């Protein structure tokens, strides 16, 4: 009988986008691979983490170098859960214009949240909107 690995947990404070993102992506890829997440799952999670952390630094913290981003992960054999929290005032995700509307299709920004929703199983912004919770469940239909 196969034995499952204990859940992987991490709680990181990211002080700079480039270094923080590279470090987190490497750590998470190793944890996912060890728990047999398939290539499509790894791709989806990598993309969602990148979009979430970039949004946190750029839009949440408005690139203020004095502010940090908190990244938390818990990964077991069935599900990978993540939280990305910035130090900004938060926002209401319902106010993001739908980038697929004809009126917005040529606007070059605003697709990050859409991609996260498309690739992850669940996505939630915790009020006041500066903390994103998302999860990927093996075999589950994406949330969007």
């Amino acid at each position: 009988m196969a034995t499952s690995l204990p859940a992987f947990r991490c709680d990181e404070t990211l002080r700079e986008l480039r270094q923080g993102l590279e470090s987190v992506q490497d750590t998470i890829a190793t944890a996912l691979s060890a728990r047999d997440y398939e290539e499509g799952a790894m791709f989806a999670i990598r993309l969602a983490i990148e979009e979430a952390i970039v949004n946190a630094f750029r839009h949440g913290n408005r690139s203020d170098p004095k502010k940090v981003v908190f990244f938390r992960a818990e990964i077991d054999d069935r599900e990978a859960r993540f939280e990305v929290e910035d130090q900004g005032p938060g926002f209401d995700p319902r106010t993001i214009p739908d980038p697929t509307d004809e009126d917005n299709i040529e606007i070059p920004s605003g697709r990050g949240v859409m991609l996260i929703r498309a690739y992850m199983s669940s996505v939630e912004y915790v009020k006041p909107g500066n903390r994103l919770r998302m999860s990927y469940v093996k075999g589950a239909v994406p949330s969007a």
Partner: protein
Amino acid sequence: MAAPSSHISIRKHDGVIRIDFVDRNILDELNIHQIGEELLKSVESEFKPKVVIVFANVEHLSSAAFGTLMKFLERVKSRDGQLRLCELKPRVLEGFTITKLNRLFAIHDSYQAAADSFK
């Protein structure tokens, strides 16, 4: 002759500007600004440019990369040019479909099909 840069290679053949991405993970957020600059520079002295971007090496497109491509499309159009994309891997194409940007860009299976579409 190829004009190498850090992230893209640019060649001109039979009036078509061919742009290849040099390595597969280059289109992440961390490099996208520089890539955008290189793309814009590739058509700065061109009139009615015919441009094909080859995605054969690309594994991953972020939202920032989509934004950069859209700005490049706008620049090409502002010079009365045309832009084609080709050789997208299924996951990269999926990103275009999710964001519905496949309606904005002309996407072809191969470089040859993209180049022929200018004729």
